[in-house]
């Protein structure tokens, strides 16, 4: 439940009164209430985009009633929201029929469509192997979150696609794999092969660096250089894989603990140490 502050407002979701905070989106509030609103182009770590249109809900503000993208639409006092009205279901169904025609083999699309009773689409498929729904998450995470901008949209309308400039290996891509992580359909993929990371979708290959401790390749040289560039000069960057970093952290922590315990023992006596151990 949202913390009630001066910025709290009242909204109604599917007939139920709810508290929300100014600045929150309809999706955030509805999901907190346990409402089932599907999303495809939305990711918590990326700014809302409102493009896939499966998260549409019906809002009534004053006399106006309309379908709005819940991922982006801000709550306002007195807003009345319906997450599963006939209009919402109809619109989602049309969108899902269109997406199913575009990406008939995408499990994510197929499963979501089925949830709305769409098992087949009346529209033709251009490319049966298409898996990109053009949600733009890869482009947005690369540009807006990482500030790299290795990929972008090319062309427009039905010819729109995501890709690297001129469809050639990217000189900018750092191979961090954020695009792979956020892609909702698995269209964007990469493969680590020995000391090479192949960003398959972007036709780009990058050299992997081995962990200074265990020797396993774990991140691309370019990604580590990129992080190095973001850090202040006096902060050291150890080129260590997450697994080793974790075990090193555990090691350091337990060492620190034993020092604390020893110090406590000197001041609080044996009883204190026993108490501490029992915690």
């Amino acid at each position, binding site marked *: 439940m949202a913390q009630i502050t001066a910025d709290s407002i009242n909204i109604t979701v599917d007939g139920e009164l709810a508290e929300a905070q100014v600045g929150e989106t309809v999706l955030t509030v509805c999901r907190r209430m346990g409402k089932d609103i599907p999303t495809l182009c939305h990711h918590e770590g990326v700014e809302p985009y409102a493009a896939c249109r499966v998260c549409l809900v019906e809002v009534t503000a004053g006399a106006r009633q309309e379908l709005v993208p819940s991922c982006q639409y801000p709550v306002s006092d007195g807003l009345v929201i319906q997450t599963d009205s006939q209009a919402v279901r109809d619109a989602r169904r049309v969108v899902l029929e*269109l997406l199913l025609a575009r990406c008939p083999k995408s499990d994510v699309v197929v499963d979501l469509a089925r949830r709305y009773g769409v098992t087949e689409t009346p529209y033709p498929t251009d490319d049966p192997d298409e898996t990109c729904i053009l949600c733009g998450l890869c482009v947005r995470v690369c540009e807006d979150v990482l500030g790299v901008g290795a990929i972008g949209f090319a062309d*427009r309308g039905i*010819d729109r696609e995501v890709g690297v400039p001129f469809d050639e290996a990217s000189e900018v891509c750092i191979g961090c794999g954020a695009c792979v992580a956020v892609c909702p359909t698995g269209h964007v993929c990469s493969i680590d092969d020995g000391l090479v990371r192949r960003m398959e979708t972007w036709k780009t290959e990058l050299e992997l660096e081995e962990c200074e401790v265990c020797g396993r390749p774990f991140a691309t040289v370019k990604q580590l250089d990129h992080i190095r560039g973001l850090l202040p000069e006096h902060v050291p960057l150890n080129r260590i894989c997450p697994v080793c970093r974790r075990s090193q952290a555990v090691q350091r922590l337990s060492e620190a603990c034993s020092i604390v315990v020893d110090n406590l023992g000197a001041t609080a006596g044996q009883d204190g140490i026993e108490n501490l151990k029992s915690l």
Partner: protein
Amino acid sequence: MIAPAAKNIASAGQLDQLRQRLRVDAERYKVNIAVCGGTGCQAYDCQAVIDAFDQELARRDLKDTVRLRCTGCHGFCERGPLAVISPSGLFYQQIKTEDVPEIVDKTIIGGEVIERLLYREPITKDRIREESEVPFYKHQQRIVFGANGIIEPTNIDDYIAVGGYQALAKVVGALSAQEVIDIVLRSGLRGRGGGGFAAGRKWEITRDQGGDTKYVICNADEGDPGAYMDRSILEGNPHSVLEGMLIGAYAIGAAEGYIYVRAEYPLAVRNIGVAVAQAEEAALLGENILGTGFNFKVRISRGAGAFVCGEETALIASVEGRLGTPSAKPPFPAQRGLFGMPTNINNVETWANVPQIISRGADWFAGTGTPKSKGTKVFSLVGKINNTGLVEVPMGITLREVVFDIGGGIPKGRKFKAVQTGGPSGGLIPESMLDLPIDFDELTGVGAMMGSGGMIVMDEDTCMVDIARYFMNFLREESCGKCTPCREGIKNMLHILTRICQGAGNEDDIGRLEALADGIGAAALCALGGTAPNPVLSSLKYFRDEYLAHVKEKRCPAGVCTALITLSIDAAKCKGCGRCVKVCPTDAISGGVKKAPAKIDQAKCISCRACFETCPFDAVTIV
């Protein structure tokens, strides 16, 4: 071109003095020749006519007493090149370069009227001497376009001489920001770009946002097929737009403005550029305007010509140098717009109305129009219409008056079928609704929209399914591809319509089309997608029988859809002139020589209709 006298105007008083001086100066010219230099007339090579006038006047040593101006669009594009000769207001049309010496000789020097250059009323056959008496102009009310045919757009002096920048002087000198907004609110001015939102209200919302930095933008990204109103205002009277923006900026509290104009409008880009430079020289743009402490500068941002960039949020993205795609509203540009700051966007025609409203008053403006749509609207009247051109009419005028009284009806005596308003986002209005008054809400009520003012007239030989298909094809090309319903949905609407036009449709397709159109309208991200189904839905609503003829009888009643028509030649009507034989691209027509009737070989015919369009005797029939 004469260098402008307007330089460093430091106060309203100086502006007034300059205006009076310019008026006195103008009196030394006994005759004024205003040749239309709009884009339509440029296509007729009016430049050659202007050059011919210039040479002829120089040759006869008349340049000190005759003032030749290349003005903006006069509107009657059908009849270009055009010239108005004052003080008598004589209106010559379809002028050729070889007519020029005669005009100078007989009319300018001799005071004679050259009858053959006058407009001839097609029905009464009367020759009409003055522009204002031509039916095309007689039913118009030209507020925004009033000065277009009089002033030279590339000379700020001309604009000042007709009272230009007086409204600005009044505003910055005597009115508070709230007073300006109140005047605009009271005038009832609504945005001319398509949405019809109350301009004063929009200004007020932007003004009331916090922060010191605010922007005003002029949307000159006119993209509807066949529409060229805004282009012609920028070309013909760019200072009226600048003055409107200055007044708006003062009311809103903006110190900077942008004009977003498509680069495909070279003359508009040039003329607004010249206007900005001259206004800066005149100190009407810049710091401490008219000595009042008000600062405002304008930048010109050229668009690459994407239809979607006329949508406010896409326009802002494009000005910022980002990909021109829309983003969901709210936040509205008035709340968070250009560079994240409150931004007020109005289109060219809206801005151009503002100085008039300030000068002549809110009540004067509100005195024209209907209860909820005030003032005039400029339309580009195109398609199957006798008088193609730009018309400015009072709101509330009926479509019938525009099409028949101003437009002169349909060419070749064919029957009117429909008019499309609002461009590809608008709807088709059938003959039964011709008495509909032109008004934002009336048009929306019948499934069309005012849009920015495109008005495409269609005759009985236009297939409504094919027209819907044409618009979907346009929108398919212009959809940015960001949201699913617009990108995928328009493609599939086009797919279904193409199938129907090819005779491969069935009755289920009509229901599918309707469901898809409704879905796209409800679910699309921006107004482009939201209104994209309008041509489909309105044609289905008013011309359903044509769809049914296509799918059930495999027949195209208008005889347009090539897969569904058979052309043949009526031997009784054929005079054997052979024109059809020459135009046929597949050599399907034989005969047609020495007065023997022509004949079409159906095996070779591709139903391109070239013979039908060419035949002067209506001998080609379509079944």
